[in-house]
Every structure is written in structure tokens, then in C-alpha cells.
């Protein structure tokens, strides 16, 4: 019956700092995504959420939301955001501080560089199973293209194309350059 499923439905799920993250790099930060697969009521709502914390000078590689808009609220600290539209215009290029909100439209490319050690955010996504597509790094779209397609699409020689495909060994969060690396406990 309805009451057996609806009335006892799980209504709370923690994705804050204490929970086990989906992506973690001790030098860069952590990410946790909550979708309708792990929190079924989100299917009714058609919404999902993401919690992220990025260490100082670490970076979230350029990516885009494949099937959702993302409304990002800064919980702590500050970070530099760049958002780019389909024409290559930077529609946002600036600092986002605690308490501020930024809307990242579906398919617009975004990159984040943390300016604080305690930078963290929550992003509300308008799809219950949101997908993101990285444009750089180990799981990026560019890495999945044939080498010759990369070379000719970007007007590079094969060696440069190989660098573009393979140089970044990280998936989403890139630790700061060696010179800026924080001590890891």
C-alpha cells in the first residue's frame, strides 16, 4: 500500500564533510554527490545535490553539467570561478565568497580554483541523476577522442595532441602546483 512506502520514506541524507566522499584527493579536496539512486525521494523532486570542498590553490578542472542546471552556494571560504558559454565568452570570471550563489546553466563550461583552505560549497542540481563531463583530466572528453581528431581539431602536432590528452593524470580535482603544495597530514 501507499502508506507502507510513502509514510516511511527516507527523507534525510547527510552529504557534509563527515561523510565518505565519492572523489577524494588528500592534496586537492573531496566531492560527494547525492542522486536519486542513493536517496530515492529525489526522483520525485527531479533534483540532486553535490557537496565539495577544495583546498587552497587546488582546482576543479573545466567541466559542464550534461543534463542539469546547477545552483551553487558557497558555504565557506572563497574561490575563483570562470563560466564560459557556447560562444567562448566568459560570462562569469570572478571570486565567489561565503553566502553567495552562482547559477551555472546546463552545458556551460565552468572551472573553479580555491582561494582558501576551507573553501566548500553545496550545488543544487535540477536533475535527479545529474551527469558532469570533464573537459580536462583522466576522464575528459578530449582524452576520449582519437589522437588524430584532437590534433586536427585543435591544430596541434601529434606530440602536442598527446600531451593535451594525457598530461593531466587527475580526474576532477587537481592538486596545486608543487611550489604551492600544502603539507599533507
Amino acid at each position, binding site marked *: 500500500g501507499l502508506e507502507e512506502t510513502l509514510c516511511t520514506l527516507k527523507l534525510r541524507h547527510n552529504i557534509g564533510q563527515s561523510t565518505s566522499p565519492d572523489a577524494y584527493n588528500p592534496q586537492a579536496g573531496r566531492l560527494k554527490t547525492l542522486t536519486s539512486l542513493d536517496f530515492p525521494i529525489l526522483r520525485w523532486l527531479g533534483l540532486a545535490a553535490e557537496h565539495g570542498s577544495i583546498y587552497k590553490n587546488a582546482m576543479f578542472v573545466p567541466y559542464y553539467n550534461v543534463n542539469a542546471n546547477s545552483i551553487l552556494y558557497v558555504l565557506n571560504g572563497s574561490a575563483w570561478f570562470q563560466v564560459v558559454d557556447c560562444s567562448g565568452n566568459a560570462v562569469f570570471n570572478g571570486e565567489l565568497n561565503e553566502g553567495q550563489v552562482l547559477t551555472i546553466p546546463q552545458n556551460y*563550461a565552468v572551472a573553479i580554483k580555491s582561494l582558501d583552505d576551507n573553501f566548500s560549497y553545496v550545488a543544487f542540481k535540477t536533475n535527479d541523476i545529474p*551527469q558532469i563531463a570533464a573537459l580536462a583530466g583522466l576522464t575528459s572528453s578530449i582524452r576520449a577522442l582519437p589522437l588524430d581528431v584532437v590534433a586536427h581539431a585543435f591544430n596541434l602536432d601529434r606530440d602536442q595532441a598527446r600531451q593535451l590528452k594525457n598530461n593531466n593524470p587527475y580526474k576532477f580535482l587537481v592538486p596545486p602546483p608543487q611550489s604551492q603544495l600544502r603539507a599533507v597530514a
Partner: protein
Amino acid sequence: PQQNECQFQRLNALEPDNSVKSEAGTIETWNPNNDQLRCAGVALSRCTIQRNGLRRPFYTNAPQEIYIQQGRGIFGLIFPGCRETYEEPQEQEQGQGPRPQDRHQKVEHFREGDIIAVPTGVPFWMYNNEQTPVIAITLIDTTNLDNQLDQIPRRFYLSGNQEQEFLQYQQKEGGQGQQQEGGNEGGNVLSGFNDEFLEEAFSVDREIVRNIKGKNDDREGSIVEVKEGLKVISPPTLRPRQGREEEEEEEEEEEERRGDRRRHRPHHHEEEEEEEEWSHQVRRVRRPHHHREDRN
């Protein structure tokens, strides 16, 4: 569609009314603001790709359905997060370590009459490796639920500095789109990022970053020529099918249409051979029923 958008007194046959020339082809578009197309919630374009023409990778804010009116070639869809399953064997160069091998996601062939389905936000590229120009008709379903933006069709190119074909209409008509997009100088989704961001994200030098942003690229448009021909990892079975194989496929289709009972049998010779081999093995095992130690 908005209210009264589909109240037609009369329908008209439409021709493409804008054309963008590229180095190795042309993209023609129908005005997506036309009443009929707005009512249907779609945008249409026709892409012609000359021999050795590569359509640069791009994704759209709504699903696409592409019909191949003419020609043959190869294409790829890049599904975010999926593995690169086409791998080149690692090469050992003399006096050096192993050379990094290439690997990429699946590449497929297309031919005349094919429909290619491209989901929202999934990068797509295509290449004409034959003499005949490829002509592809593309429909973008802008009112699809997968599109959470407005009804303006958008192509997000991963490379180059070409102009947006559909946004030109917004610019011409000086409508809402122009204000939203903040002009249309041409570029790709990576060209709006700072050089430092891209250097760090890709771990590459400044020269490569300039190329990523399309700054060293004076080739015209979104279809570029690959003079020496495009090399991709592709199994022999993915070569364009010709002659006998094509006939066999047509025969199979004919059989299916007739409801031939044999349709339940495997179509391909390899599968038949495998089945034959398997049945031999089964026979070998089943025959000596009286020897219990042979049963497995």
C-alpha cells in the same frame, strides 16, 4: 511552445536561409525562429562535408537526430566518464622506452540512409573518408525535456574559433539571445578560460593553450580539412561494407521481413561457426553417457 504559437492559417515549404562556409564544407541552417519550427520546438541544419573533412567535436543543449542523405564516413560520440575501449598496441621504440599508445572511445561508420542519435551534452564528431561529399540533415529537439535552457539551439564546440550557426539569427534579429550570449565573436567552450587555468587543468605549456583557445587557428569554420587523411583505431570489421557483405545484410533484412523461421538462427558466419564448434563439444561430452567420469 507558447500560447497561440501553433495557430496556423497557412503552412509554407522552408529552405535553409543561412549558410556558414568552412574550410572543408558548409553548414546551412533554417531559421529556428520561424513560426513552424518554433511550434514544433526544433531546429534544423544541413551539413555538407567534403572529402577528408572533419567536423570538429561539439555538443548541443538538446538531443540531435542526424540523417545521412549522402556519403559515408566515420563518427564518434564521447560519453562522459566512459572508458576508452579502442586501444593501440604499445610500441617499443629502439633505444627508448615504450611510446605512449593512443586509446579512445568507440568509433563507428555511417553510410547513406543511416540515422545517428546524439544525446544532449554528448560530444559528437564526424569525418568524411570517401570521395563523395557527405550530406547530413540534423534536427535538434529544443523542447525536449533534456534541454533545461531556453529554446535557442546551441552548439558548444570543444575546439576552434568558429561562429555559432544558430546564434547568428539572434544577432541579426537583435533579440533576447544576443543579450544573453553577450555577443558572438566565435570561440569554443575552452576559449573563455584564463591561460593559467588551462595550463594547470591540462598540464601543458602556453603554446598549446593558445591552440586550445583557437588563437593559432586560421582555418575557416567548424569543418576542417585533414590533408593526409584521419587515422583512428578501427577494427577491420568496421570498414565500410561493400559488395557481398552488403548484399548479405540486405538478404538478412529481407528474411526478417518475410518472418523466415531461420531468423532465430545466428546471422553471422562467425557465430554459426562458434555454434557449430559448441555443438561438437556438446556432442563430445554427451556421447559417452555410460562413462560417468567423462561427464562434465
